[in-house]
């Protein structure tokens, strides 16, 4: 079965492979999965098949990696993936109010996606941004010193 998305990335993967020392093929598992997810929005079954064949690693290794690291997804998310940190420093600066606000505004439970497929709301743990708490990540970009008002403004801009 052909995987057009994977095929389009092979040249990039080859260059990545050349930068690593010999014998490091297994190490490419994470960076390749990251790139696939950046392109597809998640990692599909056919991507696992293609990557397993490309790197020569056991399929179980790829599956284990996907289930272990919280950033990897096996299913699509909304066009804008909102992740609000709820760890100690963020909670101390209003993360819980922010999460409640987004929950009410978007009308979705944590982990849910709005019916129009635009927003997915999630919580996450410490992002190393405690000095600018609370922090919300939208599609891998940090938005710091957040508040319900600023979140409204941001969501409005995202459309």
């Amino acid at each position: 079965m052909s995987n057009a998305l994977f095929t389009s990335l092979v040249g990039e993967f080859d260059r990545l492979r050349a930068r690593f020392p010999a014998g490091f093929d297994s190490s490419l598992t994470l960076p390749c999965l990251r790139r696939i997810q950046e392109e597809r929005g998640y990692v599909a079954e056919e991507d696992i098949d293609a990557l397993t064949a490309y790197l020569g690693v056991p399929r179980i290794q790829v599956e284990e990696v996907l289930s272990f690291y919280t950033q990897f997804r096996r299913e699509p998310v909304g066009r804008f993936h909102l992740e609000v940190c709820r760890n100690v420093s963020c909670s101390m600066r209003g993360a819980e109010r922010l999460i409640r606000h987004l929950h009410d505004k978007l009308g979705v439970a944590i982990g849910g996606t709005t019916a129009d497929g635009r927003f997915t709301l999630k919580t996450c743990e410490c992002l190393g941004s405690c000095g600018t708490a609370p922090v919300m990540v939208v599609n891998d970009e940090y938005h710091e010193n957040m508040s319900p008002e600023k979140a409204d403004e941001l969501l409005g801009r995202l459309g």
Partner: protein
Amino acid sequence: MTPNRDARILMTFPVTATSHLLAEARARGQYSALDKALKTMTPAEIGKEVTASGLQGRGGAAFSAGRKWSVIQLDDGQTHFLCANADEGEPGTFKDRWILENSPHQLIESMLIAAYALQVRHAFVYMRGEFSGPYRRLQAALDEAYDAGLVGENILGTGFSCDIIIYRGAGSYVCGEASALITSIEGKRGYPRNRPPRLTVKGLYQKPTVINNVETLSNIAWIVNNGSAAFKAIGSPKAPGTRLISISGHVAKPGVYEIEIGYPWKRLIYEDAGGMLGGAALKCVIPGGISTKVLTAAEVETLNLDPTEVEPAGSSMGSGGMIAIAEGTCMVRLLQVMLRFYHHESCGQCTPCREGMGWLHRIIDRIVMGMGRVEDLDQMIHISKLQDGNTICGMGDAAGYAVIGILAKYRHEFEHWITTGRSLCEGKLECLASS
């Protein structure tokens, strides 16, 4: 210790829109230590300087950098690896991010010197997957350094070659633990490994590997430039140098501050960090990441930021991730947030941690729901002690320290919630004065 305790090693320049770029870094003298090291020193001489400097790890464990390096046998004929630990996942910690974003060349130069001292051809920076901004900064700095012939083949025409590869994680607290970090670079689940063998004996792909925290490594260029004696003259005799302290929580000016070790605690909170929000009273401080034991306001009143003072007080400077907590904050809810986190992050390898974290989390959730039992608190301490020392990595111990530390000082808040079904502090985590 310098007279005013205001020595600086890392934050020595004003941050501007361009201060992270190579041209400005070089104008500040960056890469002069690399030149000196490669052209005038042997690898062994650099190792000796680092050992003599007394530099200790800044990631949390404070292990001697020189002793770690000295395990590497330069003539063993094996491939050696170096990894900078930029996973920075300990809640409350964001100080390495300052280096990655604002002074990436300080890290790159120091890593190259370390790579030369340890005879490393390929060095890695393991960076947490969420750090997209710091990643772009460091990668751009690396590209600049490659173009300038400072990284890669035949550096500065000396014949020494070293490549630096940034390896991005994908969301896992435990990967900040050195052996889990290595397993992750091998493209697998980030499971910590049993020692022995130490990673300096069998690390990445079973080759001798040194893993140092970003801040630890970033001191190396300064030490090579100024000498170990100058480094030892800063800080406290048993813990030389400075620390980057990232302070957050209920302070007016959260951020990263470089302090000379021995700096007065109150000065950091009340002068540098602008005091408590809205003039609130300080209740307690988490000194160095949530895995270090909480210290009350009274305990830090006269304390200096020196491990030889913080450790006898029953805690640790840990990762430098300080959280200041205002009076009126509910310690039960705070511990609930921490235990939810530990439960989420347990890798599941060791039974005491995998089961213990879930158990602790369920108990605290039950207390917060008003269904706590009097025996819950002793049970939590019992579980914490069961974990201590019985897991492959330190995460089992760390969660226990958080539990034991908070229960030792704020047990009455837990008892109040259990007996009355409600919080003594209205369940507040935000500072009263700020809302």
